[in-house]
């Protein structure tokens, strides 16, 4: 029996959401509608009990400064500590990695023409820990192992949507060639529309976001053709994080996925929050 990808999860990873959880403010009027959108997801995940989550996210100048800017970086360490992003580290459990599986995936993906950077020591910031908090709540330890997969979306250009979708497909092959019956989920995080800089800060584009969700489900190949400038213009300068969702989508089987959950909410701080769960049928 080999490892297999059972589902993919997509969610925004706004730092203020982490702060709301950490400071016990999830029941406040501002936050309640947002967290309500994740209740069904938490129950779903608790029932699924994946062994490993391959978590696609971006580092926000936490582990990587401008000294080193890897386009794709796979975390192969045994563990990853929450980063101090300037406010102090989030009070969440350390992330347990899966070095054997990660090494297999790294070798397989590189041999499949994806020139990954291998990271054996790295702190993980809100991009990775906020999705875990949203889907798992506040456990003493995260209920599965995590392979962090960091994508550069800070310095332009990030990888193209097309490249991300292809990487997801290569990941599918890499997982299938691992001889251990692991239940694997792939999570794509970041987005949706938001802009954190300049006079246009605060941009939200509901129409774009919802069309993105529609196309991610039904037409990933078409969506992957969207040029970077469309993300920047329509979803804001930081909305380009959405290319990462295409990695998770590419990891799904060719047959149309089952939509388990879909949620959209504005705002969380400066950002539109989108969330989707797709299961392989």
């Amino acid at each position: 029996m080999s490892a297999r990808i059972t589902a993919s999860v997509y969610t925004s990873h706004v730092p203020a959401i982490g702060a709301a959880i950490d400071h016990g403010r999830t029941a406040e009027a501002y936050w309640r509608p947002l967290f309500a959108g994740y209740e069904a997801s938490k129950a779903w995940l608790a029932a699924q009990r994946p062994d490993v989550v391959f978590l696609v996210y971006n580092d926000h100048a936490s582990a990587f400064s401008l000294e080193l800017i890897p386009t794709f970086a796979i975390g192969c360490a045994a563990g990853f500590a929450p980063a101090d992003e300037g406010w102090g580290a989030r009070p969440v459990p350390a992330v347990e990695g899966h070095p054997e599986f990660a090494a297999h995936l790294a070798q397989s993906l590189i041999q499949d023409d994806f020139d990954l950077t291998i990271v054996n020591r790295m702190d993980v910031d809100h991009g990775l820990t906020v999705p875990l908090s949203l889907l798992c709540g506040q456990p003493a330890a995260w209920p599965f192992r995590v392979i962090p997969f960091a994508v550069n979306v800070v310095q332009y250009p990030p990888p193209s949507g097309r490249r991300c979708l292809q990487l997801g497909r290569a990941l599918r092959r890499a997982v299938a060639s691992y001889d251990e019956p692991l239940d694997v989920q792939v999570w794509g995080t970041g987005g949706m529309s938001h802009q954190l800089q300049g006079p246009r800060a605060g941009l939200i584009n509901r129409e774009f976001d919802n069309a993105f969700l529609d196309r991610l489900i039904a037409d990933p190949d078409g969506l992957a053709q969207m040029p970077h400038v469309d993300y920047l213009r329509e979803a804001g300068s930081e909305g380009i994080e959405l290319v990462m969702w295409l990695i998770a989508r590419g990891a799904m089987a060719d047959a149309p996925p089952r939509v388990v959950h879909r949620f959209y909410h504005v705002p969380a701080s400066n950002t539109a929050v989108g969330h989707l769960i797709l299961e392989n049928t």
Partner: protein
Amino acid sequence: MALDKPYKDIPGTTVFDAEQSRKGYHLNQFCMSLMKAENRARFKADERAYLDAWPMTEEQKQAVLARDLNRCIALGGNIYFLAKIGATDGKSFLQMAGSMTGMTEDEYRAMMLAGGRPIEGNRRVGEMK
């Protein structure tokens, strides 16, 4: 042949590309140093002296001292790096982003609660409202 930069006509937006990154290298690396609590304390104790230890331009140092984030971005700063200054000051991302829009904090918060800045009129320079 020059690189194609089709994003230059997006209003109120500076894309942090290789050119900006090169200009802002030391400014952003200074920001990065604020990830350590002891450096945050040293910076707060004497901002000017702390900045003078970095090979930044005088313009960049003045922009940091003034907490003028739009100016910092024009000089090569990136928001995820600049956010470390905001964190040191105890500011949220909402406060930082709002400070660049010409709106008051309350106005900006209200705009976000009402659904954010609309895309209509904000796609291209010349149509900005």
